[in-house]
């Protein structure tokens, strides 16, 4: 450790963002991760790896531990055993300010204590950066355009509908421009068109070199947009791999305790996943 970087670190009020990750670089990793909430074990030995350039979907029934795993990757939830690494370093080794430049998190529900406007909320995503104002403006404008919230930029967040709020929250996360995106059910409150748009956005970010981890309930969406799927069941990984390999009727029917059918779309040949319903 030389003295010079330390002095520079003291003079600099905020840390600098990391270099763009190389394609395939390991951005987040959980190894033999155990998490307990109170005495209750929620995750029991989970391993997951997230690489730059891919969309990883976390799926599984209610209470399988999807959000907890996402929380552990976000450094919100401490590991009881095992380790979580972000950009190669255990999460406890980063300061909050350094983490904010490396991962952005979309929580399940978006709340706001005071009536900030949509644009002010999206701009909050720029807080970790010590960037020139023009760069902030551009990031905010692009994030709002991508999530189609520009039209109500001046309205107070509290006056929006659930779906609109969800999109504003996503815009804030995009404006943060972190190389690792952790999204907890980004499609839950959205209509069909915006669900598709959000997942297309995830693919775009992955193509641009980011890593995207997304918790999904809709298996069809996961099948259509994820590069890789991790199926969680009772706090463990039941399967992990490309959707075409992981989504089998046997596995999904067992995990969801409901008959699930998987077939190729008769016209497009794409994978279709859904519950089997009685006629």
């Amino acid at each position, binding site marked *: 450790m030389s003295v010079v970087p330390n002095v520079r670190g003291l003079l600099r009020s905020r840390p600098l963002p990391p270099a763009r990750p190389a394609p395939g670089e390991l951005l987040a990793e959980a190894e033999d991760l155990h998490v307990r909430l109170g005495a209750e074990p929620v995750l029991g030995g989970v391993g997951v790896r997230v690489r730059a350039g891919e969309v990883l979907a976390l799926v599984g029934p209610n209470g399988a531990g999807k959000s907890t795993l996402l929380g552990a990757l*976000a450094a919100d939830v401490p590991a009881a055993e095992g380790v979580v690494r972000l950009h190669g370093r255990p999460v406890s080794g980063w300061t909050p300010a350094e983490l904010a430049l490396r991962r952005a998190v979309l929580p399940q529900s978006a709340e706001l204590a005071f009536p900030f406007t949509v644009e002010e909320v999206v701009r909050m995503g720029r807080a970790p950066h010590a960037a020139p104002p023009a760069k902030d403006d551009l990031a905010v404008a*692009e994030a709002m355009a991508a999530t189609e919230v520009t039209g109500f930029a*001046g309205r107070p967040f509290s006056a929006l509908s659930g779906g609109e709020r969800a999109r504003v929250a996503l815009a804030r996360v995009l404006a943060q421009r972190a190389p690792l995106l952790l999204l907890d059910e980004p499609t839950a409150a959205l209509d069909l068109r915006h669900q598709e748009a959000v997942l297309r956005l995830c693919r775009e970010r992955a193509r641009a070199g980011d890593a995207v981890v997304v918790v999904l309930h809709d298996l069809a969406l996961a099948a259509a947009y994820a590069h890789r799927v991790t199926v969680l069941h009772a706090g463990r990984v039941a399967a992990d791999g490309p959707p075409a390999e992981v989504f089998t009727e046997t596995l999904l029917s067992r995990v969801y305790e409901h008959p699930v059918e998987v077939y190729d779309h008769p016209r497009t040949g794409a994978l279709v996943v859904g519950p089997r319903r009685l006629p």
Partner: protein
Amino acid sequence: MLDKAAERTAAAPLRARRSTGWLLTVGLVAALLVLVPVAAGLGAYPIPVADVVGSVLHRAHLGGSALDRVPESVLWNVRFPRIVLALLVGASLGCAGALMQGVFGNPLAEPGVIGVSSGAAVGAVAAIAFGLDFLGMWTVPVLAFLAGLGTVLLVYAMSRSGGRTEVVTLILTGIAVNAFGGALIGLFLFFADTAAVSQITFWQLGSLSQATWSKVLAVLPWAVGGLALAPLYSRRLDLLALGERPARHLGVDVERLRLTLVLVIALLTAAAVSVAGIIGFVGLVVPHLLRMAAGPGHRFLVPGSALLGALVLLGADLAARTAAAPAELPLGVLTSLLGSPFFFLLLRRTRRRQGGWA
């Protein structure tokens, strides 16, 4: 092309809000500059405003002229210490209210409502009732600060669950803390001698009638320290409105921020309470009015609340000592009289927005 248009529409309302903030700041400062000499001139011994200004200029060696012995003494030994104290106390209460609402993420949080003022008053009253003076003139403010700090921590710990503060829990905690603080003050009264009793009663009503320069000096460092620190946390308070976890995701060290702000709040509240007693609702009404006018951004709200708080308390104190002359209304009674209906309105609005308390 599209991005340019997006940028323009996005930036417009924000710019409007920022300029509102600047206009309000200028307006508040101007109003203070007018009200201070007016308040200094009004009272049982009226002094023309021109004479007030002249005397101030004279003392600042900028021309002007000294007044006769009596008006000069009234002005500098009675009116000005009281005015300066009103400004300090008002600024501290307004600023503490804005910070507290930001930390609790709840627009109903206020030092008086949630019991921090009465907690601080317990410390101050204890100092008087037991004749403590181990720290000289600092004894009362230091004890008020310690008791206030303990109370904020207690309320904070009791009213939060899962990173959120529910309105009901917050208000109920306030009731319990206020009741306990009131009981302790009553107990100290019971044990205190007659001289101390009359001194303590003033704490319960809130008043600036015993203002002296030495009191000003006793609270000056606390108030100025708190007021100087508070604006440093504006940006992080904005992020805290998203919730604790999202704020942490954006790089805020939430634990440290909370602890620091609780200290600053206790500092400001103690400064106000140790010289003026319990003056309620200033910290509630002031940030609210400013939020309605200029939006919830803390960069304006925190310093703006200090300015408007100073203005409001100076005006209220002026009314308290002139409205029923020669008698004097207790200041705390006056602010509560005006502030409580506002609190009712706020409660109703919050309940309507939440669709009930359950």
